[in-house]
């Protein structure tokens, strides 16, 4: 068989890249889960290894609804009633009554004026800025926004700028600097995915109103459980109705399947419906997911029990870690980062915790800033006291092995390097 020279060159190039990732310890490996998503799962890792039953501390299943029987039943009914797929984008022949119903229900839940579904929140973020802004405008983003926002901003013709994480003085400087632009849009996460802290949305909205800017919030790590009734960061910070655009996901607390949305001012959402390319050029969210998400919204609208359990678990888990002597990033969300600073240490601690039956992942540069390696633990309403007790026992055992209990950044860095 004849092989073209360029094919060989390209394959060698990518083979070397893969080897380089492995050598640098940056190669990502999937762990195969042989169970529905939940507080305890059966994991095959590494590939071919016998299954281990582990406590799951690293999913975004915040409300424990990913495998809830009512949600599964509603999805099954949706499958029967509306079929498996639409074989079309929304605006050609892919919009069912339940798509519009879900958009209405999300609008009510988020306290906005209109909502547009996307295949994912990644797609919502990829489409929203390019649809709304042009060269004469500017996007001003918090430096720790999610990668999908960065990509969305890069796809947009509007120039962009950034401000130091949650630094309102720096944001104000930037807003002053860009007063010559037609429109300004401040962009932030509601809850930051790696640190778990909440954006100062009240201060951001005040500044935006003072300097005539729009505000866009990605509330993916908040929708369903942050705020008194789980509406999100805007509810927690008392600014419902004052956010121009909220992007969020159905892929975390709201059932965890997939799908996302742009929700906000009617005109802005209306323009997205006309121009946002990921909406225009990819298939409708599958009916089965829409039916499941409608049930999820019914459940979270009916009671705050799950949100309250999650909040209680978060308080308890933070206290357990702090009492054991771990260096925990302060915060209020169910994202609880255990700081280890050193990338190798974070990977080794995660590996040893897995051996103890606790599923966590180490995060390090470039996912988090250099010298800020950590294990991100995430609470769920599905966790019961026995899960937390089992988890803290394992954390303490592994923490003792590495001699990190009771130590802060300076001592850990001294011992292991940054």
């Amino acid at each position, binding site marked *: 068989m004849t092989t073209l020279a360029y094919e060989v060159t390209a394959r060698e190039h990518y083979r070397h890249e893969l080897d380089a990732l492995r050598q640098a310890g940056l190669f990502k490996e999937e762990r195969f889960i042989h169970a529905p998503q939940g507080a305890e799962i059966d994991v095959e890792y590494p590939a071919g290894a016998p299954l281990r039953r582990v406590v799951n501390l690293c999913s975004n299943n915040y409300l424990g609804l990913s495998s809830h029987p009512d949600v599964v039943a509603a999805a099954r009914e949706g499958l029967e009633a509306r079929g498996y797929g639409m074989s079309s984008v929304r605006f050609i022949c892919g919009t069912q009554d339940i798509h519009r119903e879900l958009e209405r229900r999300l609008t009510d839940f988020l306290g906005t004026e209109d909502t547009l579904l996307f295949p994912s929140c990644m797609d919502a973020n990829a489409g929203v800025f390019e649809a709304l802004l042009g060269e004469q405008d500017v996007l001003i983003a918090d*430096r720790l926004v999610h990668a999908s926002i*960065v990509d969305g*901003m*890069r796809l947009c013709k509007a*120039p*962009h*700028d*950034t401000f*130091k*994480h949650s*630094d309102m003085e720096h944001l104000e400087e930037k807003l002053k600097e860009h007063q010559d632009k037609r429109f300004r849009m401040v962009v932030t996460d509601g809850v930051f995915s790696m640190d778990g802290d909440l954006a100062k949305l009240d201060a951001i909205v005040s500044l935006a109103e003072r300097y005539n800017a729009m505000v866009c919030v990605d509330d993916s790590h908040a929708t369903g459980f942050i705020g008194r009734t789980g509406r999100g960061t805007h509810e927690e910070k008392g600014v419902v109705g004052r956010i121009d655009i909220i992007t969020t996901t159905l892929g975390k607390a709201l059932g965890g399947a997939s799908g996302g949305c742009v929700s906000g001012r009617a005109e802005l959402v209306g323009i997205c419906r006309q121009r946002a390319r990921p909406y225009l050029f990819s298939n409708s969210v599958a009916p089965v997911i829409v039916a499941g998400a409608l049930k999820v919204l019914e459940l979270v609208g009916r009671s705050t029990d799950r949100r309250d359990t999650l909040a209680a678990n978060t308080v308890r888990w933070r206290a357990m870690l702090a009492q054991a002597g771990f260096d925990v990033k302060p915060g209020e969300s169910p994202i609880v980062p255990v700081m280890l600073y050193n990338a190798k240490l974070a990977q080794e601690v995660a590996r040893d915790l897995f051996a103890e039956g606790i599923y966590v992942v180490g995060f390090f*540069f*470039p996912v988090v*800033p*250099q*010298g800020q390696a950590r294990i991100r633990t995430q609470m769920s309403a599905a966790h019961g006291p026995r899960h937390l007790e089992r988890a803290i026992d394992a954390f303490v055992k592994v923490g003792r092995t590495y001699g990190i209990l009771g130590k802060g950044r300076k001592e850990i860095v001294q011992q292991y390097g940054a």
Partner: protein
Amino acid sequence: MDELKRVILDYVKKEYLDDTDDRELAADTCLITGGIVDSFSMVSLKRFLERKYAIQIPDAEATPAAFDTVNSIADVVTRVQARSGAVGKVTAS
């Protein structure tokens, strides 16, 4: 350290380091590959230099590699200034 490098270094410290950041920066410190400045946020430095020195740095020259140290950034500015004949012209900012 010459004046141009001093100006760049001062801006980098003010724009990219938090008050609590105790990292020491020098003209040869790797800013992007060292994780101090992300390539996405680098745009404010480019805009600052263009305004201060009344130059236009082509995007092709404002690469992460060219903006990785104060030394290499100063080289870019000097090269663009030489090309545009605007050496020494500084605007208020």
